């Protein structure tokens, strides 16, 4: 018993340590971006109408007048203290700007996760259980179409159906859940659906594939033979054993969700990190773009860390 727990513990520690080199590469990429670009980064950020003074000011502000290694050490040092630099346009700390915008993005991400997982797993289970039937075909058609319609195209389609033709939901905007559940739900519904379709398509497909594998196993026949109800066999025996690949695809496709957030927030005018990114692009406010890449990548790494750690619960047979 003790030895097993040690094994799991060692695995968890090793898995957490493994995120460090990944984040180091992300940080190196984000840092070197400014220096990889052809030409003078200060001049590019300043734009076409900048004067020489503007360029010098930006160069000094970004520390580009220092030697490269000093720039890197200072940058990492600040990063480790949670300092992501100063926005060129607003002169405010990037970490503060990001903190202000986190709530809508996190809310949208969580509601999307809930909606798509709640819809996709039953679809995948049903499709695998009735493999080859019309339900199965319907789910597979949904999966292929869901994977092909970009979130911002679907977003406009939803706006057309629910806000322009029928007036059922507000066209855009964001209301915090603290300001009332009903307005919150009516504002978050369309963005979550638009963002969740591709995610749900992937999960449904993986659930079906993973369930098909498990349903072909001998212990499923045993469970049926001993007279267990279909629900017990499907949920208790099959889904439980099919869970690891499903968890994996949720982690891996979290990147799609992040990409979708940036665009979806623009369509629905949600004042989150995506909107901040777009404003930063238009103003060439590079410190903000760097900060956002770091935050989003850290979130992705964290989600995949949690998924990997969940294996120890989902499948205790896995020994490390």
């Amino acid at each position, binding site marked *: 018993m003790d030895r097993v727990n040690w094994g799991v513990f060692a695995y968890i520690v090793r898995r957490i340590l493994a995120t460090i*080199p*990944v*984040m*180091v*590469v*992300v940080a*190196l*990429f*984000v840092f070197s*971006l*400014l220096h*990889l*670009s*052809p030409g003078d*980064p200060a001049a*590019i950020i300043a734009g076409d109408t900048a004067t020489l003074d503007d360029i010098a000011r930006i160069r000094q502000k970004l520390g580009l007048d220092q030697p490269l290694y000093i720039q890197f050490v200072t940058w990492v040092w600040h990063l480790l203290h949670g300092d992501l630099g100063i926005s060129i346009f607003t002169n405010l700390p990037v970490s503060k700007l990001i903190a202000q915008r986190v709530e809508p993005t996190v809310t949208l991400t969580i509601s999307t996760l809930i909606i798509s997982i709640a819809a996709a797993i039953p679809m995948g289970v049903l499709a695998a259980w009735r493999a080859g039937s019309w339900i199965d075909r319907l789910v597979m058609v949904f999966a*292929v*179409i869901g*994977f*092909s*319609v*970009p979130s*911002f*195209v679907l977003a*406009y*389609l939803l*706006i*057309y159906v629910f806000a*322009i033709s029928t007036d059922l939901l507000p*066209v855009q905007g964001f209301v915090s859940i603290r300001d009332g559940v009903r307005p919150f739900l009516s504002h978050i519904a369309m963005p979550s659906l638009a963002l969740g379709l591709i995610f749900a398509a992937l999960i449904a*497909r993986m659930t079906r*594939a993973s369930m*098909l*594998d498990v349903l072909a196993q001998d212990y499923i026949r045993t469970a049926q033979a001993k007279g267990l109800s279909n629900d017990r066999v499907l949920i208790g025996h099959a889904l439980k054993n099919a869970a690891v690949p499903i968890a994996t695809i949720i982690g891996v496709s979290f*990147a*799609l969700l*992040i*990409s979708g957030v*940036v*665009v979806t927030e*623009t*369509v629905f005018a949600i004042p989150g990190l995506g909107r901040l*990114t*777009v404003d*930063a*692009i*238009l103003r*060439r406010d*590079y410190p903000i*773009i*760097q900060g*956002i*890449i770091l935050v*989003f*990548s850290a979130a*992705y*790494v964290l989600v*995949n860390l949690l998924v990997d750690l969940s294996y120890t619960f989902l499948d205790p047979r896995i020994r490390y």
Partner: protein
Amino acid sequence: MTVAPTDLALLAAPALRKGGVQAYIRRHPTIVIGAGLLGLMVLMALFAPYLGTVDPQALSPIRRLRWPSAQYWFGTDMLGRDVYSRTIYGARVSLTVGISVALLASGFGLAIGLVTGFSRWTDAIVMRIMDGLMSIPSILIAIALMALTRASMQNVIIAITVAEVPRATRLVRGIVLTLRELPFVEAAHASGTGFFRILWRHILPNTLPPLLVNGSFVAAAAMIIEAALSFLGAGTPPNIPSWGNIMAEGRSLFQVAYYIVLFPGAFLSLTVLAINLLGDGLRDALDPRLARRM
């Protein structure tokens, strides 16, 4: 000794011989539908000037915001430009970006993957870098690169390629690592076949089918990213009509003239659907083991 590499080709080939075209369609309906739809899009892009289009950039302020009609099939935008012509010409941007990125990312992925698969020393370093890059969502890599360069189609292609190379590299490396331990490669080695000949005759042919399938999904992803970048104002320059640009221009007018956004959106979705169907079909045809599962 060359049994394994030709295996995959043999599996796909009989469908063509037995029963001809009809049997092939019955066996791989998704390939046929996907390839057909994609073929139509390519033809449309190639023959854009002959499809009843006008100059997609021609301004006509008197005729702005006309609804779709017999004269303006997809209506006109706020500057009086013909949305139908712009959408048809927009296919050129999407297809160019999709195909270029798929070719470039697969090429670089193949080269880097082969090297890392055979050299433990480079493998350790390169794969750490790839792991790091893969944890940055591709659209953010592309946004970061685009924010530093001038908007041009070439830069869009480079930016999306950088974001897509790690996955292709991973794929090739994985295949190489598995293959080099297999008996037929060992046998080739034992019978004195040179390194480059093994690489060329045994390893390379086995990496191509999965790379082809992956390439189709890369093309689809690249088209979506290009459209998203243009939609956000960080992609193809506004003077080139791309589906993302048309949608970006129609954004503020969506409530009065939603057709400006919906037509390019529909074409984008259809093209991506065609490529996904083709990719799914190719995977089923090239890898029957996986086909049963997915």
